[in-house]
């Protein structure tokens, strides 16, 4: 048995398909998802409570012209450009960010059921946002002065960061993460955040109460170009940076010790992953409230089809998360038109049974 000889005859000419390598399939899937996203965005902009949009309006928006002689066409243009377009873009950003932060968290905790919504990170981010909404006029006014329109987002980010770090600290001992401890700690953190939220509601004035309840339903209905400018850059940054985590998350599949043997700086990558999850969750919770289950369903579906390689999984999650949330939002606003359903209700309606299905079908699943 010689070990050296075979290293030589590895010629690129003889490259054949490797059995069990799902990367080629994953690349095809990414292209298909991107095409699908483009179609869904176009469709979602076109359809709404006023029926299918005028193709002429769409063309005029893209060319930047505003006809002043046709009030009907002008109305269509306003609906499309100032209501639907920001809403679809916001839904895409939020969906992508929820799915990517779910995938990153699952990779970090080495568990397909970890999700910012379930383990209390969203609740922490929500508490941060609520603190700012309620106390922004009083005690926290200087923070508003400092961050202006971004204050709620910053508070949500800090809330998400604090709960993620607390969760990791509680769940991890001696370098290994105990999933049962983590999930239970998440429930406790969520309850604690809920109680604090209740206290805030108790002391809130009318304006803050309205803002809170509107925000708490989970919706992208309030999307404006202004809000996109606030949350968009954070989410875009997270989405662009997340591929940097892909190889470390792949190695972490083997556990933290083995990832270290493979050459991963485990501590640094863990910190980066935690900040990523907190930023993405914080930004999306700040603008859209609690939208659950996207972070579990999307990564799980993709793992089933293209495998767990994070180099493809993370961009795939961004695309499919965007598609799913745009689709859900479109359904939410036409199904009971002219009223509309909060999107959080829809994602929970579809996502919770899916979550149960994962629990039931996952072989050998254990909380420990």
């Amino acid at each position, binding site marked *: 048995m010689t*070990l050296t000889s075979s290293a030589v005859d590895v010629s690129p000419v003889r490259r054949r398909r490797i059995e069990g*390598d799902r990367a080629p399939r994953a690349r095809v899937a990414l292209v298909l998802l991107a095409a699908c996203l483009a179609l869904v965005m176009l469709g979602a902009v076109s359809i709404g409570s006023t029926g299918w949009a005028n193709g002429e309006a769409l063309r005029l928006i893209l060319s930047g012209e505003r006809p002043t002689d046709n009030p009907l066409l002008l109305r269509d243009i306003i609906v499309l450009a100032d209501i639907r377009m920001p809403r679809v873009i916001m839904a895409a950003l939020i969906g992508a960010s929820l799915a990517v932060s779910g995938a990153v968290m699952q990779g970090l905790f080495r568990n397909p059921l970890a999700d910012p919504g379930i383990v209390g990170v969203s609740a922490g981010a929500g508490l941060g946002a609520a603190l700012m909404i309620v106390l922004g006029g009083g005690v926290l006014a200087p923070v508003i002065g400092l961050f202006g329109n971004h204050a709620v987002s910053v508070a949500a980010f800090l809330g998400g960061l604090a709960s993620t770090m607390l969760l990791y600290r509680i769940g991890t001992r001696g370098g290994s993460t105990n999933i049962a401890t983590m999930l239970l700690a998440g429930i406790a953190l969520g309850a604690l955040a809920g109680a604090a939220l209740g206290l805030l509601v108790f002391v809130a004035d009318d304006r803050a109460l309205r803002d809170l309840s509107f925000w708490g339903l989970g919706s992208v209905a309030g999307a404006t170009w202004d809000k996109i400018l606030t949350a968009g850059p954070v989410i875009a940054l997270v989405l662009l940076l997340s591929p940097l985590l892909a*190889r470390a998350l792949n190695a972490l599949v083997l556990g933290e010790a083995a990832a270290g*043997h*493979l050459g991963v700086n485990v501590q640094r990558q863990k910190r980066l992953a935690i900040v990523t999850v907190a930023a993405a969750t914080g930004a999306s919770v700040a603008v859209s409230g609690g939208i659950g289950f996207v972070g579990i369903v999307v990564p799980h579906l993709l793992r089933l089809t293209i*495998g767990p390689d994070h180099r493809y999984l993370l961009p795939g999650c961004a695309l499919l998360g965007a598609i799913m949330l745009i689709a859900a939002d479109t359904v939410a606003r036409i199904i009971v038109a002219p009223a509309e359903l909060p999107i959080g209700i829809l994602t929970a309606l579809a996502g919770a049974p899916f979550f149960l299905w994962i629990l039931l079908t996952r072989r050998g699943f254990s909380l420990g």
Partner: protein
Amino acid sequence: MSELVLEQVSVRLGGRVIVDDLSFTARAGEVTAIIGPNGSGKSTTMKGLSGETRYQGRARLNGREINETPAVEMAGYRAVLPQHGTITFPMTVSEVVSLGFHARRREPALIGEALARVGLDGFGGRFFETLSGGEQQRTQLARVLVQIWEPVRGGKPCWLFLDEPVSSLDIHHQIQIMDLAHAYARAGGGVLAVMHDLNLTAMYANQVVALRGGRCLAAGPTRETLTGPILSAVYGCPLAVNEAPRDDTPFILPHLARSSGA
């Protein structure tokens, strides 16, 4: 420069001294076995040398202090096979093996080569979780091999650290894997293995380090270390070497099955 040198290495875990004042040298080109009873500090020694746990004292691999060398540099010439390896997400065997490319250039053809070498030819498309314990361990070994495929790279030896590499394998595959480790050493690489099977240790190790209670009781060439008196002291029970049972109890030795090298 092409050695693993331990000088007065101690490892504490939770305030307790698990490895105490350990010194030995392992050379590239040889298989060095660490033996000892349960709880004698074998795996903890391995953890210290793998960068998982910090140690006191000095431990240099190819002249570099292990504690102070970045993980990514170490990964270029040291690969570690853990005692237990679990995988979270459903991955194919090929995908698990290709994780070994983390710190090096990706050479897809090596995946098939490595699988063939550990006796898993044609297993690439199977899901890791559907394999038997022994097949999973050999998949992990293939991953480790891919990481440091060339026993000597840039004039420096690469090192395989194996924590009980054959513990869940049948006798045939035990020999196959030990043959592989032995061949790696003969080609210039270094092999450090925690071993429980003393017969396999006698067959394949060039040097043996015997631990008891975190201390080194004996270290040296295999023939000088695997003696009745030393083994009896190490394991705390009377052991005889090269002595057939007095009654007619069958005893089985793996020596005939060895394919090469001996």
